[in-house]
């Protein structure tokens, strides 16, 4: 719960088999994040992996979102460098903020 008016739901869901035959079945996994309020809503669904079931053996093949991964790392480095630059600027001004 975020506040009294909104709710946060995060779940990992295995869907029904998407392909396969009598011997092998494939179950995709999805991560869902749902935020909703009285007058707004936001839903984010992301693939997590695919489970291969053959007889009683289950094998999970993960789906890695490389775009999101690279994006996250690059933005984190950018934020770090910007923070270092801002600290340098603040320290040089003697702790006074001149805008």
């Amino acid at each position, binding site marked *: 719960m975020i506040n009294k008016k909104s709710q946060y739901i995060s779940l990992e869901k295995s869907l029904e088999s998407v*392909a*396969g035959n009598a011997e092998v079945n494939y179950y995709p996994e999805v991560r869902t994040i749902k935020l909703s309020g009285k007058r*707004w809503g*936001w839903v984010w669904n992301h*693939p997590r992996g695919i489970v291969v079931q053959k007889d009683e053996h289950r094998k999970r093949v993960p789906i890695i979102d490389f775009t999101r991964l690279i994006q996250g790392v690059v*933005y984190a480095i950018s934020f770090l*460098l910007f923070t270092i*630059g801002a600290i340098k600027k603040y320290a040089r001004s003697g702790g006074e903020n001149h805008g």
Partner: protein
Amino acid sequence: MDDEYLQTAEIHLEGQKQALGVIERLLDAARPEAVFSKPVQVGEKQVITASEVSVGLGFGFGFGSGPRMITNLDPDADAVEEETGQGSGGGGGGGAGARPVAVIAIDGDQVSVQPIFDFTKIALAFITLLGSVFFMGSQMKKRK
């Protein structure tokens, strides 16, 4: 005037109900089942596309009433007449998006996942990094 006010309130509530219905339907469209496409047969293999699906939206409504003063120009009549007025308004916005994340190829009991790179998103992230590098570099070079 009270009847008019109640009528406005009723219209407002009806609009709010309709907007809530639209929100529920749109959020249902972003169901988890929409992430994986239906399998397509390509030669011996079955191909499935996995995508990231997101939907976000919101709306706002408001209504109110209040006194409105009208100056009467007739010198014999009362100087000021009082009336009440009411109004309502609303607005909303939202967006939906889907981005392919990977292609899954199924061949018998063999599964291979091929990632899909979104070079535009990666390039934009690197442009931001470049800006941060220049900013930090310029601060390092400067002397007090």
